[in-house]
């Protein structure tokens, strides 16, 4: 896919650039924020947005813009790590289920049934009590939730690909099953996985917000958008801005990711791309 074909998908361009903008802001917070986020000053709390603090300050006098930048980084990191865990475990499992039928497939399917049966929040609560609440707990909980999703996507995609003749050709050429999975199946389901990845990333950001909101996710002094909402909820009637700003940030980021995901699907999946002509070819 080159840059020109990218431009044919305005959704992808808009979604990716908005995502990139937030990702950049988030990364920037690693090296620079307008104010350090650990810099607590009760004296200047609840400042309204102004030239000094563009988005005002929170209940501990921390700069809201800095918090949102850093919170976005946490949200992205948690979501992305969870996607990495989900894909890292789920994709090999799904591939294994696709290439080895019988017991391996049965075990993988049962495992994914099992993981689906545990709502992510329950996993999070269990892990939070096991290892204490924190961002890593959210990563694991959301990651576990992601595993069967990726396993099913990978298995479904791999099963569809493995009926194609080039897989048979590879077997004729003496490639082992893992080699076939690596060389032929994986590259061809990569686009599926990337698209699913953006969806799970946005779901992960929402889930992180939910977990932090009930106190199981990110813990101070680190911050995340969900944690900001938690901190601000009791002040909602007095300082509604403290809830609105991080909430809107979540909404915009998730929308951007979803639009990018939709665009990616259209751009990467030739079957969908050519749908307009699919039923009239010939």
């Amino acid at each position, binding site marked *: 896919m080159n840059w020109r074909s990218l431009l044919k998908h305005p959704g992808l361009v808009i979604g990716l650039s908005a995502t990139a903008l937030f990702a950049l802001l988030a990364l920037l917070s690693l090296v620079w924020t307008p104010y350090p986020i650990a810099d607590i000053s009760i004296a200047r709390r609840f400042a309204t947005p102004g030239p000094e603090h563009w988005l005002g300050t929170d209940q501990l006098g921390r700069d809201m813009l800095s918090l949102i930048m850093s919170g976005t980084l946490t949200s992205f990191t948690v979501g992305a790590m969870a996607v990495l865990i989900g894909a890292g475990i789920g994709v090999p499992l799904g591939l294994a289920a696709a290439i080895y039928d019988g017991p391996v497939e049965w075990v993988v399917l049962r495992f994914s049934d099992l993981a689906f049966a545990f709502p992510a929040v329950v996993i999070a609560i269990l892990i939070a009590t096991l290892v204490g609440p924190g961002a890593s707990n959210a990563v694991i909980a959301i990651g576990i939730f992601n595993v069967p999703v990726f396993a099913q996507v990978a298995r479904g995609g791999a099963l569809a690909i493995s009926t194609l003749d*080039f897989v048979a050709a590879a077997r*004729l*050429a003496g490639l082992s099953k893992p080699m076939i999975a690596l060389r032929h199946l994986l590259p061809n389901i990569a686009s599926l996985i990337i698209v699913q990845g953006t969806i799970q990333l946005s779901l992960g950001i929402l889930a992180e917000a939910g977990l932090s909101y009930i106190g199981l996710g990110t813990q101070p002094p680190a911050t995340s958008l969900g944690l900001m909402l938690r901190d601000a909820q009791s002040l909602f009637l007095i300082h509604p801005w403290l809830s609105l700003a991080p909430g809107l940030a979540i909404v915009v980021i998730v929308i951007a990711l979803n639009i990018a995901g939709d665009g990616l699907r259209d751009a990467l999946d030739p079957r969908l791309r050519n749908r307009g002509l699919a039923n*009239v070819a*010939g």
Partner: protein
Amino acid sequence: MSLVEIEKLTISFGGKAAVSDLSLSINKGDRFGVVGESGSGKSLTALAVTGLLPENAEVSGAIRFDGAHLPQDEKAMARLRGQRIGMVFQEPMTALNPLLRVGDQIEEALKLTGHEGDTAVAGLLTEVGLEAQHTDRFPHQLSGGQRQRVMIAMALASAPDLMIADEPTSALDVITQRVVLDLIREICDRRQMTLIFISHDMRAVATLCDRIAVLRGGKLIETGPVKEVLSRPADAYTQKLVAATRMAPRQGEPHVAEKTLLEVVHLTRAFPQGGFWRWRQKPLLAVNDVSLRVSAGECLALVGPSGCGKTTLARMIVGLDSATTGQMRFEGTAYRGSDLPPARRADLSLVFQDPFGSFNPRLSITQSLGEPLRLIPDLDPLAREERLMEAIDSVGLDRAMLARFPHEFSGGQRQRLAIARALVTRPSLVVLDEPVSALDVSVRGDVLDLLVKLQNQLGLTYIIISHDLDMVAAMADRVLVMEAGKIVEEGKPDALFAAPQHRLTKALMEARLPDIAA
């Protein structure tokens, strides 16, 4: 008087014309054939007549049906289709709603035109050769031929003036194909219906139609009465299409069986059937106690209807699948299928049917072609390079193409590449699974010529799997006819086709469409 009149029709997508400046006139009572290869715009033209073009199509020009312009209003157009035009599509698998009983689907078509009643459904079913019991079936419970009959019954529901059949038989096997074609002809005769028959198959058009239009790349090449056009094609392209329908018998010495290369001994492949108590179900015998011999340098053909087990047999021979009982011997190495030792695999190879699915789109041609070379140990990079060059040269393609990716090639080129891949290990036996059936007619000949040339040059042994009797007759030294996992007849092609003994062979011969009269 013309029923359908197409005037300067242009259909384009995103500025690219798929049909350009096409004018045709189809008279009442005509059986009009539209012939063309993929991308010729023949289907789009049919869709344009019925107002079913995709929404993103840009259309200009005029279409008149029975003297009147096609209505712009969607509802009016829909009703016109329902009452006066019947349509039959290519894929009977997907053209019926999988969730509804076929009786209901036919009845729905009747309701839309105001002809109601159970008797009407039964009448239509009888007319297309189905029985009353079929009304309660779901589409997946019917065979392809039966489904296509249901489609025809639905098309007839409104007693239309015009029937449009878009490749109605290309997804069916040889015997059914002929039956359905005959059915369409018979109904058109009986009902005095006008027919637009769209096909890539010259011989089908010749059998069924009285007028013909040849399309290529969205343009009209030639039109006129079938007899005139086909016996004296004016255009070079039409000539080529007509020529491709006749396969010249193979030149050269008849093969003399000397040394046995491959021997198949009492081979059986059983597939377990589903069910809760799997072991209680009787297994399905896809290949049932088959024995055969292939001698070096021979070209052996396996023919039979779909599902007869010929592909399963081929897969076991090349080592993609394993026999349940029995065994094979390849130059003295005994094996059951997948246990074929890697060292021997290099001597055996397979060319797949579908040139589009047989290359990994993510790998370059070099990578794909080089893959079988893993079977040959200790091949240094230089020798490897040499093998690839040799293979690509042998199929008549440019060496520069090695660096490219599959999507950059046409179907014919890909099939050449598939052959190159099959040859890269310098095998002695090549199994060809329907090697040309997925290709456009105009390139089939070239690929077959290439296969013959390679066999002569390299002394290859071929096993060809096909349902195309003409191709088999042209290529094979010996033919095996398979049915339900067993070999039912064997012989030299001339003798076998001239005097078929088995019921199946006879049916296959009868289903053959007549040659186009020169």
